[in-house]
């Protein structure tokens, strides 16, 4: 099972744990319609696009409404802390949640006790909490953007708003230096997918690939383009690609979808997501070797 967890901007939405599907530009879960916009909605939508294309089991979600006051975030953490061992998740992705170091620590302790430890992926404020709590190395994948990479590289910062100015000023071309710092301080996950004008895929501190084509600068301005990368990489890991392969393909798919959508800074994220099936149809086999889809849900995906 791929388990995707995060808050959505619907104030009174209760905790929902279960199935999700895409329908007419929305996500539908437990009878609720969730907008496919920046944040957890975009992340889930991207993962769904991959699982539907590859005919894999759809992700299961743990979401709750939260517009910044933290109740929904805490209910998600508490649910995961209580239920992770019985859920037997293969992949666990943590996304938009109010950072809570104590709850993150408890969750990491529970995950270690699972019969099989899931691949742990964190983005957004879940990544902030993991780093601030000194737990980054417990995670398998982080997906920071350039500023968030500077945050990982700043040993004292507990949020990207408090990074040292000289690190904020650093250009993304200085990424390798920041990557070195983050790993030296043990503030990086096993694999980093750094999202930006140049995407870096980093395994245990070593840059294994740099992706900069196609170059679609407008993607940086579009809310949700980082979230879709997190959803894509989660789904490709679930499809049994190696972590670094999943990261490389995720970055390529996102860029190519931006190109096909003829993205401008005014483009909405749903228009990028709509292009994912076409991108995978055209390029996935060439890029990844995933050329055959089993008819059986949850079956093999690669030849």
């Amino acid at each position, binding site marked *: 099972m791929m388990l995707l967890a995060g808050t*959505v901007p619907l104030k009174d939405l209760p905790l929902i744990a279960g199935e999700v599907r895409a329908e007419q530009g929305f996500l539908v879960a437990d009878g609720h319609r969730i907008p496919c*916009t920046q944040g957890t909605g975009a992340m889930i939508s991207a993962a769904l696009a991959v699982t539907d294309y590859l005919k894999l089991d759809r992700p299961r979600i743990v979401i709750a409404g939260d517009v*910044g006051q933290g109740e929904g975030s805490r209910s998600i953490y508490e649910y995961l802390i209580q239920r992770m061992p019985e859920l037997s998740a293969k992949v666990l992705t943590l996304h938009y949640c109010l950072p809570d170091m104590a709850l993150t620590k408890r969750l990491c302790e529970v995950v270690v006790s699972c019969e099989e430890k899931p691949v742990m992926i964190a983005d957004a404020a879940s990544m902030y909490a993991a780093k601030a709590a000194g737990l980054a190395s417990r995670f398998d994948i982080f997906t920071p953007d350039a500023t*968030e990479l500077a945050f990982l590289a700043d040993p004292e910062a*507990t949020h990207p708003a408090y990074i040292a100015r000289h690190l*904020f000023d650093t250009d993304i071309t200085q990424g390798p230096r920041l990557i070195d710092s983050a790993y030296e301080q043990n503030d990086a996950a096993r694999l980093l997918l750094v999202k930006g004008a140049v995407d870096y895929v980093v395994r245990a501190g070593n840059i294994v690939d740099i992706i900069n084509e196609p170059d679609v*600068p407008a993607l940086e*301005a579009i*809310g949700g383009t980082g979230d879709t990368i997190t959803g894509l990489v989660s789904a490709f890991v679930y499809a049994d690609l190696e972590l670094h392969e999943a990261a490389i393909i995720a970055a390529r798919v996102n860029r190519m979808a931006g190109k096909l959508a003829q993205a401008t800074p005014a483009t909405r994220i749903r228009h990028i997501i709509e292009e994912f099936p076409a991108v995978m149809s055209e390029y996935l086999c060439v890029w990844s070797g995933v050329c055959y889809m089993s008819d059986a849900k949850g079956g093999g995906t690669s030849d």
Partner: protein
Amino acid sequence: MKDLKRKKKASFEGGGLVIFREVQEAMKAEKVLKGADYKVKLVAPPPQLRKGCDLALEVNLVEQLGLERLFKEKDIEYVDITPLKLETSELLNIVKVTDFGDWVMVKAGNMKITFDKNDGMIVNTSGGGCPDIPHLHAEMIGKKLTEAPRPRDIGFTLCALMLDRALEEGIDIWQGGRQS
């Protein structure tokens, strides 16, 4: 047999500190914040910030914006909200501007706002990771810079504070023609 295990007290690590001049004010703040469902803990300030037998409140630093607003509403006087680690840098106060031709993107910390040069309409917000950011995204897009709700008024977190700074700079650029 009755289970005599004590319920484990929930731990709290907030990473932020509110400094007060008066002990009484710290206690009042604790009551107000707990009443509003914030997690807080009364602690001694670090030696560098102590004046005597004073008290500070440990808070979740990420919630800085919501805390500041509540203190203002309840007339609670405080000296500062600061990271618990004294070595931490100050709150970022610089912005970067990218010209996309018809659009301008303003970046403050981890937050970006993009608007149309012709009519000042917000076309996108991006970056960040706190739960109020997707809400602000939905509330601000499609509105003019000067008419959009302010993140500092309806947001709660440091991400929202950074987005407010980006919006402020965007308004300056839009109104002052700083964009060449």
